[in-house]
């Protein structure tokens, strides 16, 4: 199994109050799965994604990524996992405003150990081409449309060839037409063998995936394959 969560909880303390953002999650995701995480606002979707992306640590429980327990990793090892195994796409793109698209895509490679200067440049170019932005390489983020920005962000997430692509509401800031393009890109990546987990509020987005996990109050409410050709639920 690529991802295995066992009885994972995440508790935020706000003052004296304890918020159980995740409350005993058990989850397995295999290679080349295409998963949507759904649920009402505040149900813990983002918290789960951050845990999966090694951006955050669980309060209790274990998280094994490709067989390795991440729970006991130090900050440096976690950073390496984020760099090598995980591509994260944010709702608000999070591009560096002052550098061009190509440089944005190159960023994770700077912090990785593989490849020299030439490899980095070539790899960034080719991934940028893969998301269909060959002719936007020299553009700065403020010279790109929302969809293009998200494509750059996806290229950045893919540049280190991660085993999992995580996307927290990747189309949340985009209008539906642009969203369709992004989703088509995800579909294409999935067909190419990429494991993808994305968070969404919209059934129309979830319909692209092969498996839907529904959450409520920090718990997994249901976890079933996507029903084709009709409303799930």
């Amino acid at each position: 199994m690529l991802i295995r969560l066992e009885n994972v909880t995440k508790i935020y303390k706000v003052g004296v109050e304890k918020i159980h953002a995740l409350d005993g999650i058990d989850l397995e995701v295999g290679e080349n799965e295409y998963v949507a995480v759904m649920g009402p606002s505040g149900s813990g979707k983002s918290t789960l994604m951050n845990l999966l992306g090694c951006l955050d640590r669980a309060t209790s429980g274990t998280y094994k990524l490709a067989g390795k327990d991440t729970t006991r990793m130090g900050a440096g090892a976690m950073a390496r996992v984020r760099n090598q195994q995980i591509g994260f796409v944010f709702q608000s793109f999070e591009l560096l405003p002052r550098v061009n698209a190509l440089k944005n895509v190159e960023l994770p490679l700077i912090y990785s150990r593989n490849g020299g200067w030439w490899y980095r440049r070539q790899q960034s170019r080719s991934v940028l081409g893969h998301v269909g932005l060959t002719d936007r390489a020299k553009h700065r983020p403020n010279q790109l449309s929302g969809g293009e920005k998200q494509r750059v962000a996806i290229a950045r997430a893919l540049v280190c060839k991660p085993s999992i692509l995580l996307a927290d509401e990747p189309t949340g800031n985009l209008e539906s037409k642009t969203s369709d393009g992004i989703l088509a890109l995800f579909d294409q990546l999935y067909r190419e063998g990429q494991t993808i987990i994305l968070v969404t509020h919209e059934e129309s987005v979830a319909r692209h995936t092969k498996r839907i996990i529904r959450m409520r109050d920090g718990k997994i409410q249901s976890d079933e394959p996507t029903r084709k050709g009709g409303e799930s639920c």
Partner: protein
Amino acid sequence: MLGLLKSPFTFLRLLVQGVWLALGQIWANKIRSTLTTIGIVIGVASVTAVIAAVTGLKTKVLDEFETFGTNKIYIHTDRPEKGPLRNAWHLLRFKPEHFDGLLEHCPSVECFTRMCGYSRSVIYGERSLEIVQVRGIDPHWHKIESRHVILGRPFSVIDDTHSRQVCLVTPTMRDKLLLDRDCVGQAIVIGRRSFRIVGMIEERVESAMFGGGGSQEEVFIPFNTAWKLHRPRAWAIANSKSPEVSEDARAELRFFFRKTRHLKPEDPDTFRLDVIEQFVQEFKKISLIMTAVAGGIVGISLLVGGVGIMNIMLVSVSERTREIGLRKAVGARPSAILLQFLIEAVILCLFGGLIGVAFGQIMTIGISNIPNAEFLEKASIPLWAVGLAFGFSALVGVFFGMFPAVKAAQLDPIDALRHE
């Protein structure tokens, strides 16, 4: 940081990357960066200027000492502060015979000259000069003062023993008295006595610090002649064989004079032996202290500059929290972030150091051109001071950049990304 050192290529790459990032960052905030570095600029500019001034002063003074002769020992009578000899000037005065046998008893002394002097009027024909320094000297004086006879001859032993009324003049004197160009053999009147000129000696080298501006009007007569005529106060100058043995020579002289003056072991010295070398050492010490004090003051201004750097780096960290969060999210280790911000702080400081050294150079040029301050004309920034300035700037950068950099490195990626 240790992890980085284990993979030197990653470290190198991050270093180069960090330098570019920092330059970009500084360029993007040109005005802010410049204002931030003002503290460093002032600190470095003043330290380099002060060091330049002190160095220039030192070079100048040591040069002066050099022309003065570093193996000279001045021998003067000295009144003890207490005891029966306290007021006995007449008993303590040097007499010509007090120096007999000196060379035999002081092997480290190469030669010596007895000295005495007074001022008199000098007349030749219609011309007269009112106050002229008349010096009684021994023949070795030429060697000790390195002022040689350029015309005619020096005094002979017979001139001295017979107290002949002969004299040596300088070109200035010759011109002022309207003597012949080759004035050897002419007679002048010194204090109503007629002296025959036997030679001419080199002019005194003008010294900016010692006896500068003194009169160039001087005539020289044999020591014994001067002594016989006026019995003036006498002293002596001895030359040690080399500057290295000047302390030995001094000890030998002390022993010699204590013996010849019949001083008992408990008696204080009734003479004084001054060595130029001792002033040189003294001066070197003083200039070192001056440099250190200046360095201390400047250190404080660098400290103030460093606080400015720390402040702006803290601002920078909080402005770029999201960026830091993103970098961490894509795999930057804490050490990489730390390095990035440290480099930025160091480059800011080095930038300040560069401007500071440039200003320091301008100030130094200004200092060395201050009119009527010849002792500063040799002011220049030594290379080690430039190195020191940059070294200190970098150190200030590392020291004051550390706190903001650690703060950035320890940011939690999620919190950082959520930062508005």
